[in-house]
């Protein structure tokens, strides 16, 4: 299975009003020059776990601070895509930033599922900032017990 690698939110996602902006900008320039992938635009890749048991594949994704309606889920050709956008709320616009570690913006995670699933029976629950998607396996994909008669 292939999963797009998780990256930490950019460490240098700091607004210009930050107290140490000039120092941070210098550091940013230094990092941008040596590590092109470490840019401000690297985006948010929410943390994701995959479990499976006999009947289901379970995908859990940490998406704190969203609304249920802001999360998009799609399943196509055995590939589950979770996407959406976290918008800046009022609490993050007023005043002067002291500390700015949280990431805002669009995200997308893609999971190539380990077994075929029944797309009509997929359930998703969003609670305490964690999205849990239960994907029942198709009958053909479930492990089967074969009884052996010993004569």
């Amino acid at each position, binding site marked *: 299975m292939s999963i797009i690698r998780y990256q930490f939110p950019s460490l240098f996602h700091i607004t210009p009003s930050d107290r140490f902006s000039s120092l941070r900008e210098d550091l940013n320039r230094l990092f941008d020059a040596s590590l092109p992938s470490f840019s401000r635009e690297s985006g948010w890749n929410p943390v994701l*776990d995959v*479990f499976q048991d006999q009947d289901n594949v*379970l995908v859990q994704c940490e998406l*704190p601070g969203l609304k249920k309606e802001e999360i998009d889920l799609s399943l196509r050709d055995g590939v589950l895509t979770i996407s959406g956008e976290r918008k800046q709320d009022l609490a993050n616009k007023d005043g002067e930033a002291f500390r700015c570690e949280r990431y805002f913006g669009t995200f997308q995670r893609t999971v190539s599922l380990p077994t075929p699933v029944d797309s009509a029976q997929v359930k998703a629950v969003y609670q305490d900032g*964690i999205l849990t998607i239960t994907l029942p396996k198709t009958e053909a994909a479930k492990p089967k017990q074969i009884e052996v008669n010993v004569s």
Partner: protein
Amino acid sequence: MNTLTKTAQNAAASGVRRVPFVKPLANVRETAEGYVLQAEMPGVNKSGLEVSIENGELSILGRRSDATPSGQLVYRESRAGDYQRTFELDPTIDGEKISAKMEQGILTLTLPKTERVKPRKIAITD
């Protein structure tokens, strides 16, 4: 408001070996009225949250209420630990009036400044 790094020292001093805490990502903003702190703690609800103030330090502890799903682990990125982080409080904050809200894994703390330090307009009398 600075972040303190006392957690590691405390744990070492007590000699108790435990699952390391996850340091939640936080945003802190200052307005004329006070500070607003937001910390990301997915998996924590109101009942698992402890916010305390001691010796001018604000301590946040978030215990996860979500159980690890049963079944075989296929792929893991999350760090299943409880959350803890300590902030040094600005002395101008009124400790009595701090309010907390927990919503979809985001803790929002409103830390108002004392009336004494808030900017105020002074009316001029004739």
